[in-house]
């Protein structure tokens, strides 16, 4: 075997030496020459090697593209070379040189399942996040718009307008309202750092007249503030709105808040103000406290204002400040909503037993309640018959005195 191989190699070398410019022998040529030299038949070789005759022909002709792949070509070549007694290592190197750049190892591409939805998952995720953000933003805007409708503030009633000190004092103040200087004095009292501190004694001068009886005077507080706070003998408690509305005046913006219809700036205000007087007297937190005071008083139920409000002896009072012809009183937990003809919301809240709502004199005012048996409407102090049974929902019940009168007489 080795002799043959050597002889063969000599032959190749001789051929190469003789014709250096001749085209290089291809692997196929070498194999074919060797096979013919040995006198083997291609079919016989195919039978022995079990390699298909077509593949062997392709190898001899150098048509490697017809063969299954590089790995198999190498294997076939090795088998063929071994059978013919050719050094397979040499032949394979020659083959690799020959096909450098032509035959490459199998490319590996794993089949990936085609996603059924054409949108890539990453884009889908981004789209979902954006959509969620948009939805949330929309909802937020929508809900905050609703809230702003609730917070809608009506115009400052004329009676109170002059208290803001804006100069709009054209309408004469009601008799029981504190004169502006007094209010100013109160303000000064609340903020001792203000330069008009000296005005406080002047303000106190007229106040004792208004003091009907023994009143708890704030111990460390200012003498002016206490009379002012307690100087609210009138049932409506309007004077009380003096301190309530005046105190935030330095803060400026809180004035409307204090006068909004839903805020019970009536008789309970003095009660809340009185204990706070020492605080107000303290310079460091004066502004903050006065700022917070109206908001607080709005939420705090009135418990210690005997006889100041004839309509609502107990419980909070909402709606119009001052006497009203129509008052909605709750005898049970009941939700009410009051709108006028234009759809402006006047009240939307739950009334606890004893709470009442004074209907302002606005055209087309109507009531909606979730518990018709829990509210009683009184017209000019007289209770009207019940709206309905407990738990019954009543909508668009008119709150105009005339309409109510008509209903009663009917």
């Amino acid at each position: 075997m080795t002799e043959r191989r050597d002889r063969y190699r000599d032959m190749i070398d001789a051929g190469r030496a003789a014709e250096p410019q001749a085209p290089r022998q291809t692997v196929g040529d070498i194999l074919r020459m060797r096979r013919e030299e040995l006198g083997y038949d291609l079919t016989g070789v195919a039978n022995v090697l079990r390699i298909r005759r077509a593949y062997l022909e392709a190898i001899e002709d150098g048509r490697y593209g017809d063969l299954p792949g590089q790995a198999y070509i190498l294997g076939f070549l090795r088998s063929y070379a071994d059978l013919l007694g050719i050094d397979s290592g040499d032949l394979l190197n020659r083959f690799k040189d020959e096909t450098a750049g032509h035959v490459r190892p199998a490319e590996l591409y794993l089949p990936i399942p085609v996603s059924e939805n054409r949108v890539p998952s990453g884009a889908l995720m981004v789209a979902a996040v954006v959509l969620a953000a948009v939805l949330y933003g929309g909802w937020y805007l929508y809900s905050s718009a609703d809230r702003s409708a609730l917070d809608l503030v009506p115009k400052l009633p004329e009676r109170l307008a002059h208290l803001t000190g804006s100069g709009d004092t054209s309408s004469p103040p009601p008799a029981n309202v504190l004169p502006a200087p007094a209010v100013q004095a109160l303000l000064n009292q609340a903020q001792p750092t203000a330069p008009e501190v000296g005005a406080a004694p002047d303000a106190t001068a007229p106040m004792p007249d208004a003091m009907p009886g023994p009143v708890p005077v704030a111990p460390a507080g200012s003498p002016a503030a206490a009379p002012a706070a307690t100087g609210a003998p009138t049932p409506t408690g309007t004077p009380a709105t003096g301190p309530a509305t005046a105190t935030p005046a330095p803060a400026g913006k809180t004035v409307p808040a204090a006068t909004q219809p839903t805020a019970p700036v009536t008789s309970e205000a003095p009660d809340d103000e009185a204990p706070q007087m020492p605080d107000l007297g303290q310079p460091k937190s004066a502004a903050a406290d006065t700022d917070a005071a109206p908001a607080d008083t709005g939420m705090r139920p009135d418990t210690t204002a005997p006889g100041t409000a004839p309509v609502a002896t107990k419980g909070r009072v909402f709606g119009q400040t001052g006497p009203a012809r129509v008052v909605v009183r709750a005898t049970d937990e009941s939700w009410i909503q009051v709108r006028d003809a234009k759809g402006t919301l006047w009240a939307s809240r739950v009334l606890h037993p004893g709470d009442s709502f004074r209907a302002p004199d606005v055209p087309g005012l109507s009531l909606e309640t979730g518990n018709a048996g829990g509210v009683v409407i009184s017209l000019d102090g007289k209770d009207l018959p019940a709206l309905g049974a407990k738990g019954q929902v009543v909508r668009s019940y008119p709150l105009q005195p005339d309409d109510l009168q008509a209903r009663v007489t009917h």
Partner: protein
Amino acid sequence: MAIDLGTANTLVYVKGRGIVLNEPSVVAIANVRGKKQVLAVGDEAKLMLGRTPGNIQAIRPLRDGVIADFEVAEEMIKHFIRKVHNRRSFASPQVIICVPSGSTAVERRAIQESAEAAGARRVFLIEEPMAAAIGAGLPVTEPTGSMVVDIGGGTTEVAVLSLGGIVYSRSVRVGGDKMDEAIIGYIRRNHNLLVGEGSAERIKKEIGSACPPEDGEGRVMEIKGRDLMNGVPKELIISERQIAESLAEPVSQIIEAVKVALEHTAPELAADIVDKGIVLTGGGALLSNLDFVLRHATGLPVSIADDPLSCVALGTGRALEEMKTLRNVLISMY
């Protein structure tokens, strides 16, 4: 880093650098005052195999393609990773290790955990026949059947692959080790001579053949061992024919496995295999005339892969290089 954790040899392929380590899977452990310490790993340890004093143990932690001794295997993997890993990069390497297709989930998990404990960041497993086929350059991802027979040290894997997956695989625990054992047994029975594993391996490599020569005794070789009759060292001459006779048993088991695999192959894939044939990889493919015997037994073209010893490592390495496209062939036990 791709590791071909073989029963006989461990090869490590590093991304962009190729196969950087090829050492026997042997660990020598010294018992120092009751504490076990790794003395040597790889080539050094292999020289100690069978020649150790009482306080040193030369252990092959893998048997039949799977880890038989966890602690020692972990030490070995750790040693190899440390040896090839670039110290300058702080990241611990991502490792792909191949496992026999016939290994159980417990065995796979054991290998994965060992590699993780040895300091790998992430461990993936790949089935050996798949790695071998990729390494041999077979078109495994095409819709055409390819059959690969990987004869390793501990196991022989026969698999039919198509579309990037294993259609059928069969793993028999016959490999180089079983051949060595067969040679040892044969010589002991017929010549009353006991030879070591190392000697048997050398005999196999030099004059081992899957079928006896057509005429005569073939190549001959001197072997040394211990005479069982009188207990003295002895030397005798053994021929290729005798070794072929001794190897008949393991070879027939391999042929049987291939035949069974062919029986279980779907007709379309069988048609592909008839055209292209079987590719032999692994150290066992170097056993002379094995391709001839297989060709004769199956009637199919049988070719030996280029560089059969490193096919699995190359294939595992390619899976590492092309992790994105070949992600599907990787397995993680978690």
